[in-house]
């Protein structure tokens, strides 16, 4: 294929663009976002997309500035298999395809719309896309030859088999390498294979093989268990047989032992008399022992009794002594109690006396105080009345409003201002002061303001210098506004003054001033009087009068109270009554304290006396008990003595019992020795044999029990029918194994056939793929300076491995290579594919910035390889790039995208 030209209309930033392509190479360059990739997009859509595509990407090809839908058009003229065509496709608003054949110079319409899309796709040997837009994997051979941004990577096996698209099955000369018959046979074999195996080659879960194997395994497990059961029974049978064999032997042994015992018994001498003697001697020893114990026990009893009496006596004595002591103490406490009682009475009397005196002193004081207060209050009332009158008089002289000093001051100032203004007006309407200044300068003021270059300012003055020997004519110009202002000001001021005077109902400022002064004086006087009144008393006269009344009533009341003689005698009236009251109160408090102390002492004594009396009563009771106990102990002692006799008697008895015991023990020991000697001999043997018989019989019993248990267990196990189950299992296993073998043979035969077919297919294919691989190696080797002389392509022409020369067989996985290497390799593969296809028709390679990561030395070599390809097999190359100089080595056209838009 050769692409001759392309036209875009209303396609993104291309309002109307035409590019004519060179037969060999065309490099379309420009900065970013100038529409280079858009041209490539238009080329691919123009060839591979249906015009009625409604994908979002298609809608976005409308010009950016367009509002609403708009038709985007692409036209391409190209030659395919020596025939020239033109295609026009309209997208979006008005869509449709027109396919023309170019005859001579004229385009002859071949087809339109869907049919045209289909025919074009057929010519291109691509796949017809859906209305959602085409993908590079549907472009047939162009999937390898055209590399826009979205197709920078080489197609992988996931994107389909290139065999048909790249005519790999076609031998040189056009013969078909792989026939439909092969495909059909392979298809059937794959179906049969799929009945047994999954895609990864594992046995399929649905196949009979797995289920049969599982069943066999289950049965084998079952068989193992059954065999174990049978073996167990066999083992138990052996054990049983062994026990059954041993049992008669054991029984025979018992009989023999019994015979031996019989014999031993008959041989043993009669040692029963020695045994009896020993028993009697032992009894005698025990009896003697008891006598000794009895004697000891009696002595202990006697001792205990004596101790008891002694103890009681001691205790009784102590009690008696305690009793005496307590009685003396109680007597002492009673005496003390009486004394304190008298003392308390005395103090109580004293208190009463003090209370009376205190009460009398208070009465005197209260009466005196009331009298004094009455006098004070009467004076106060008089004074307050006077003050109130004065204040009343002054308030009558007050006016409602009083001019403040400030107001007065303002009026005065206003008046002064008026006079000044009037003066200035009087002069000429302006007040001009001309004053000779220093060194002949002239100061000119107007209304108090100095002139400044003929202009009056609000503040300050301007010095106007006039140099003359004498004062000449001085012309002063001033604004009349001042005058106007002055009059207005005068008016305002006069109004203001009048207003103020009216306010205070005076006629002049002097009157106002006087008014102010007078009112101020009145006000100050009132303040002073009010302060004095407050100082006297803040209350009203009525309140004070009420208080006065109360004091008077109180005085009268206290005056009526009669005094007792003692009080008259002891409380004088001509002293400081307040101090007298304090004195008496103090005396009273002291007397009370003394009384309280006496009472406390009295209570303590009472309490102690009670306690001691209680203690006394307890001790008396205890003494009584002790006496009784002593009597009892004495009675008991008499009883014991009667029972056991005296201590001396018992001591004597003990001595003889101990002597007896010693003798009897010696005798017993002798008899025992004789007995033991007898026992070691025949007696011992008899006992041993008896024990042996017992043990043997026990073993026999255990043996019989084991035999019974084993018999029972074996019988029960036998009933289980394990053998029949095993036979059935094994029979089934045999059947299944035969079936499995058949199925496995069948499955493996299909697997073998499938693999054989694939192997032969790839072998045939390698005859075609091989040269492509060699071509890739050659160009890659050259471009990389022979660093990579080996490359492996899979059947999808995708590089899988790179060999690295100079190292010991270290090969790289394709994905381990650098980005630059991958780009170079991808281009080598594309060129090799183009070369392979060039046998059928010349090819067109379209690249979008192919050397993004490639170093300049390699990209230069790549350019050489491309040029070689162009020369050798008529390849057409179209490159889109933003780096024009990189492709300067390519022969052909350079197109600045911006110039053709």
């Amino acid at each position, binding site marked *: 294929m050769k692409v001759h030209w392309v036209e875009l209309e209303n396609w993104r930033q291309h309002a109307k663009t035409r590019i004519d392509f060179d037969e060999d190479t065309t490099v379309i360059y420009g900065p970013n976002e100038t529409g280079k990739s858009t041209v490539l997009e238009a080329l691919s859509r123009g060839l591979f997309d249906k015009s009625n595509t409604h994908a979002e990407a298609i809608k976005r090809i409308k010009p950016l500035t367009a509002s609403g839908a708009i038709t985007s058009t692409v036209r391409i003229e190209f030659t395919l298999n020596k025939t020239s065509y033109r295609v026009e496709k309209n997208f979006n608003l008005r869509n449709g395809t027109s396919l023309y054949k170019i005859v001579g110079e004229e385009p002859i319409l071949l087809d339109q719309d869907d049919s045209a899309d289909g025919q074009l796709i057929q010519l291109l040997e691509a796949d017809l896309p859906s209305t959602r837009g085409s993908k590079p994997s549907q472009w047939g051979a162009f999937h390898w030859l055209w590399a826009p941004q979205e197709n920078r990577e080489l197609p992988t096996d996931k994107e389909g088999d290139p065999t048909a698209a790249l005519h790999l099955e076609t031998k040189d000369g056009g013969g078909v*390498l*792989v*026939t*439909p*018959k*092969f495909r*059909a*046979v392979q298809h*059937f*074999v794959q179906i*049969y294979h799929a009945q047994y195996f999954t895609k990864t080659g594992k046995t399929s879960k649905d196949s009979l093989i797995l289920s049969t194997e599982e069943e066999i395994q289950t049965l084998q497990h079952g068989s193992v268990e059954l065999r174990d*059961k*049978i073996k167990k*029974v066999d083992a*138990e*049978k052996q054990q*049983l*047989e062994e026990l059954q064999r041993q049992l008669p032997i054991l029984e025979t042994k018992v009989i023999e032992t019994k015979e031996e015992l019989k014999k031993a018994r008959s041989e043993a001498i009669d040692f029963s008399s020695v045994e009896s003697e020993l028993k009697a001697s032992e009894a005698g020893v025990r009896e003697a022992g008891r006598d000794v114990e009895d004697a000891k026990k009696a002595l202990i009893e006697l001792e205990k009794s004596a101790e008891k009496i002694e103890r009681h006596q001691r205790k009784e004595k102590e009690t008696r002594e305690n009793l005496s002591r307590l009685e003396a103490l109680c007597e002492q406490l009673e005496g003390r109690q009486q004394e304190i009682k008298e003392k308390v009475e005395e103090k109580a009397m004293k208190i009463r006396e003090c209370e009376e005196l205190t009460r009398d002193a208070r009465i005197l004081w209260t009466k005196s105080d009331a009298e004094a207060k009455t006098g004070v209050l009467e004076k106060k009332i008089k004074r307050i009345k006077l003050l109130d009158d004065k204040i009343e008089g002054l308030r009558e002289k007050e006016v409602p409003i009083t001019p403040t000093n400030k107001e007065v001051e303002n009026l005065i100032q206003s008046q002064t201002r008026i006079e000044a203004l009037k003066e200035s007006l009087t002069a000429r309407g302006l007040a001009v002061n001309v004053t000779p200044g220093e060194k002949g300068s002239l100061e000119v003021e107007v209304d108090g303001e100095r002139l400044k270059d003929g202009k009056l300012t609000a503040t300050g003055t301007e010095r106007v210098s006039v140099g003359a020997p004498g004062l000449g004519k001085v012309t002063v110009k001033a604004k009349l506004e001042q005058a106007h202002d002055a009059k207005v000001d005068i008016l305002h001021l006069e109004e203001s003054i009048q207003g103020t005077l009216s306010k205070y109902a005076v006629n002049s400022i002097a009157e106002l001033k006087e008014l102010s002064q007078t009112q101020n004086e009145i006000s100050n006087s009132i303040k002073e009087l009010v302060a004095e009144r407050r100082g006297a008393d803040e209350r009203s006269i009525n309140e004070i009068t009420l208080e006065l009344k109360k004091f008077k009533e109180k005085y009268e009341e206290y005056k009526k109270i009669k005094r007792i003689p003692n009080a008259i005698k002891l409380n004088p009236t001509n002293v400081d009554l307040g101090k007298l009251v304090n004195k008496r109160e103090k005396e009273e408090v002291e007397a009370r304290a003394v009384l309280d102390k006496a009472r406390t002492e009295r209570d303590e004594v009472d309490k102690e006396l009670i306690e001691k009396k209680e203690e006394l009563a307890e001790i008396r009771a205890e003494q009584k008990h002790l006496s009784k106990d002593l009597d009892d102990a004495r009675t008991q002692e008499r009883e014991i003595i009667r029972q056991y006799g005296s201590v001396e008697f018992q001591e004597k008895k003990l001595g003889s019992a101990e002597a007896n015991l010693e003798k009897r023990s010696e005798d017993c020991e002798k008899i025992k020795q004789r007995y033991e000697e007898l026992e070691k001999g025949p007696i011992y043997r008899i006992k041993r044999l008896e024990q042996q018989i017992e043990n043997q019989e026990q073993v026999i019993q255990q043996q019989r029990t084991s035999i019974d248990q*084993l*018999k029972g267990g*074996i*019988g029960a*196990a*036998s*009933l*289980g*029918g*394990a*053998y*029949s*189950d*095993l*036979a*059935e299992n*094994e*029979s089934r296993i*045999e*059947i299944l194994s*035969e079936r499995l073998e058949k199925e496995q*043979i*069948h499955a*493996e*035969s*299909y697997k*073998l*056939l499938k693999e*054989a*077919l694939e*192997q*032969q*297919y790839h*072998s*045939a294919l390698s005859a075609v793929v091989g040269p492509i691989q060699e071509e890739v190696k050659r160009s890659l080797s050259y471009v990389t300076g022979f660093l990579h002389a080996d490359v492996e392509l899979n059947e999808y022409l995708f590089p899988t491995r790179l060999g690295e020369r100079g190292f010991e067989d270290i090969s790289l996985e394709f994905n381990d290579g650098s980005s630059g290497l991958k780009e170079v390799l991808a281009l080598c593969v594309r060129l090799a594919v183009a070369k392979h296809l060039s046998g059928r028709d010349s090819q067109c390679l379209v690249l979008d910035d192919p050397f993004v990561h490639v170093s300049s030395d390699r990209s230069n070599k790549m350019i050489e390889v491309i040029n070689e390809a162009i020369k050798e097999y008529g390849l057409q190359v179209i490159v889109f790039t933003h780096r024009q100089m990189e492709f300067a080595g390519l022969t052909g056209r350079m197109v600045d995208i911006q110039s053709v838009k």
Partner: protein
Amino acid sequence: MVRFIQTSDWQIGMKGGGLGEAGPIVREIRIESIHNVLKSAQEQKVDFVLLCGDIFEHNMISQEDVKKVVTIFNQYPDIPIYLLPGNHDMLGADCVYNRPIFQRVNHLTILRTSDSVKVTDAILHPCPVLSRFTTQDLTGTIPVVREVDGIHIGVAHGSLVGKSPVPTWEDVDLPIDPACIDRTGIDYLALGHWHSHTTFEDSTGIARIAYSGTHEQTKYDEDNAGHCLLIQIDGKGDAPKIVPIKTGQLTWVSREFEMKDSSSLIELEKYFESIKGIDMVRLVLYGELLLESKEELDNLLEFQTTVHKNSRVELDSLNITVPPSLEAPPDFGDPILNQTEIHLEQLLANEIDPRERRIIIEALAHLQRLGKEVEV
């Protein structure tokens, strides 16, 4: 005079190894054939039936199988049955005859000891097997009865020493001295253990020792099986009349068949036609067969599995051949298919493992079939 039926080695419950799908069938038929034995006894109006051991395959047999046998026994209540346990159904704690069900069969007597048993007009001298392995003559317990009145019959289960296939005492687990007759003076020795019916003569040339063999053949190449014996002894010292009666239901055939060329298939077919009534068929094919004829052979053999109860054809000795490619290059109309055929043929030529050869042959057969059948 005494008349009785002698039988043994029923081995009810046996697995039937090597019979594949026919195993279960054989097992059931062995039970059914017990009727043939007891019917024969009924028809021949014998005095009793003597079972000489291995009636059951194992003591741990299922109760279901036991019940089936007892059910049949109960259908012939008038025929006394004397049963000697063998080495498969050996006496012991697990002995199948310990099961209570046997106690209730009134006309069945289990010969558990070597004590003589008086039967109608004869005396039985049982020699029960008490141990799987013994070097002692099992008939050693039979007393000398030369001077004792009556017809004396020994009953044992083991191998006659010195008689094929067991030559010496050392090779035998359950030895029986063939000189027993001469030593004891018994009139007849009824034996079980061997599956083929055989008789042996005493020193005077009279056949007084016999194996009845199994009542139903148990496997291929078991000659003279499937019988019981009708024994008649007229009086003490008389020569026993030994008449075999067929009881086996299944018919068996086992042979080799040579395949020479494609015409052999026709012969094979004819042969199958001739044995179409046989129940159990085993054939070993040997020789050569062209691959192209394999499919036809497979079809024929598949059909045969529907004709017989068991049809086993062994093909390991049969050499499937393919003509050399030079002589008849494959032509499927596709070069890759052709190459595949050549590749598989080469594999076959270099393969000696029988299983692998089968796989390759099948693969070739599939290829040839698909190559012919698939049309485009």
